[in-house]
């Protein structure tokens, strides 16, 4: 599904990622760990294709196709979708308009309404997107948009941050839906999730985990083992492990 090869990325004239390699097979979900500033968000933004994140070397393959030069909207239409940590407010554009846009012409008002109801989004549908939204509301709105978009590769930037304990189960459930976890086999959708706390891994079954430190992947192993080690020894433990 996704293969990142020797990726170097710079933003604002500074190199952030120094040759990252990872690959996610169809139907798999992987987790990205790492301290603040280690380059996790940069990696997702570069995969998504944001022009501010300039790929200076390496390549990205998606469904076997080299998309390194593809534009942001082309990548979205090819089947990559991302939920943002701090999406911008777009005044006058309502959540409903965004959801419709995500459906790209396959408009289905009933399906949208039932999705919105399940995500407790009913009253947010007619509000301006992200305007005055709480942390939890942003997460739910981002997930609703992704569910409408239905991408094959889902990039999630800290989907659980700012979400209370009651809603985290709901978020987890929606992510599982997004990633077709109800299917026992033949899952086609893949995910790459940034998580600080790992809480989301109680709900979402990620197989592999990566630890990103200073712009390089320093470790990859089973996601839960990865998290346990970090919990026990901190990221310093990962550094020691390297030595």
């Amino acid at each position, binding site marked *: 599904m996704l293969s990142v090869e020797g990726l170097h990325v710079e933003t604002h004239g500074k190199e952030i990622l120094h040759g990252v390699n990872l690959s996610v097979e169809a139907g798999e979900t992987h987790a990205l760990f790492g301290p603040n500033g280690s380059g996790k968000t940069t990696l997702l933004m570069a995969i998504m294709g944001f022009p501010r994140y300039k790929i200076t070397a390496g390549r990205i393959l998606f469904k076997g196709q080299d998309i390194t030069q593809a534009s942001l*909207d082309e990548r979205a239409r090819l089947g990559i979708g991302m939920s943002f940590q701090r999406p911008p407010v777009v005044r006058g554009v309502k959540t409903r308009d965004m959801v419709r*846009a995500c459906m790209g012409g396959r408009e289905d008002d009933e399906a949208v309404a039932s999705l919105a109801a399940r995500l407790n989004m009913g009253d947010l549908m007619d509000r301006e997107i992200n305007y005055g939204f709480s942390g939890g509301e942003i997460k739910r709105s981002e997930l609703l948009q992704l569910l409408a978009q239905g991408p094959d590769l889902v990039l999630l930037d800290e989907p659980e941050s700012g979400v209370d304990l009651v809603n985290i189960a709901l978020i987890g459930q929606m992510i599982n839906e997004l990633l077709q976890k109800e299917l026992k086999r033949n899952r086609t959708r893949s995910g790459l999730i940034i998580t600080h706390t790992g809480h989301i891994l109680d709900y979402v079954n990620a197989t592999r985990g990566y630890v990103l430190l200073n712009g390089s992947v320093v470790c990859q192993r089973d996601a839960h083992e990865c998290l346990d080690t970090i919990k026990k020894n901190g990221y310093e433990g990962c550094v020691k492990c390297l030595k």
Partner: protein
Amino acid sequence: MSKIVRSNKRRELAEKALDKKPSLGEDIDLSRYSSTAEEHAYQEKPSELPAQDKAQLMKVGLMLDDASQRSGTFVQIDRSVVHSSTSQEGVEVLAVTQALEKYDWLQDYWWHAVSVDQDKFTAQAEIDLQNGYFIRALPGAKVVYPVQACLYIAHKNLAQKVHNIIIAEEGSELHIITGCAAHPMSASGLHIGVSEFYIKRGAKVTFTMIHNWAPEIEVRPRSGAILEEGAVFLSNYVSMKPIRSLQMYPVARCIGEGAIVRFNSILVAPPGSHLDVGSRVLLNAKGSRAEIVSRTITTGGTIVARGHIAGSAPEVKGHLECRGLILSERGTIHAIPELKGEVAGIDLSHEAAVGKIAEEEVEYLMSRGLGRDEATAMIVRGFLRVDIEGLPPELAEELKSAVEVSEKELF
């Protein structure tokens, strides 16, 4: 008009002001324009107006073939009133010259909310009055459907001068949709439109004006509103088509406790257009409130977006919001919000912002699969969407569709 006895004093004031330059906006040499035009025949049925004119009128929201969703209709072409009718009890729609003949008391309203000697334009409207509309809701009348009015320039190079009077008697409710337009072939023209609104105790007026002029038309509306206790005035103004120059600064005066005024403007200036548009509210009575919202876009023209709220009574509240988008390399938006407080215990605020579309917002939409142009169009549509509190849903829908028709031409 010989029967109309007009006050000599007002005429004298007007004569003295014939050369008085306007305090804002470009001065206009009135000798460039003609004051005469051929007469247009009165039509009992608005559906029988000439096809091309009808098409232009429909664009500004007029329903001429089936007016069942309207409680009254007024159409003036050049100097001639070609149709005026009402279909609901409790509402009057007349040519203003007719109304002056019918009601002596109308003299008490004439030039009461706007000064006759404000400038050369008001003076012209007094000296060479051509016509205009008189719309009145009788006490307690709730006029369900809007009254539609249109002032239209067909004659090349005409200076059209009209004086409109709108009266909402106590406890009444009145909705007006007015569209102004020009024949596409009338290369140039000047429209001088005086409008005076009198909104009595507990009455409510919503006034939606859609301008659809032509690239060589100059427009100088002069409007004033007086609100009594508990009165509500919602005024919406849309001008999105090329226009040579437009300058207006309507003033609403709240003289009764708890009166409420909302002005909303949506302005687009294509290259070659110069718009100087503001709204002013004087909160002169306790507990009165005002909100002024403007959304301006330049695609190459110039916009001066003014706003002024002055509070001189206790417990008044006002908010002013000017937001401007610059969508081309050339083009100017000058936002001038002003607040003036003269007593303690008032609450006035404003926010103004002028800039280009934020790249971050465009990219956010692109990450959902929209192309750059689609994303930009969606942001602009959102920017132009003004949700107007208190506007009946049918009117909100009409305003929305008027904006949508024009915004399609933006891209």
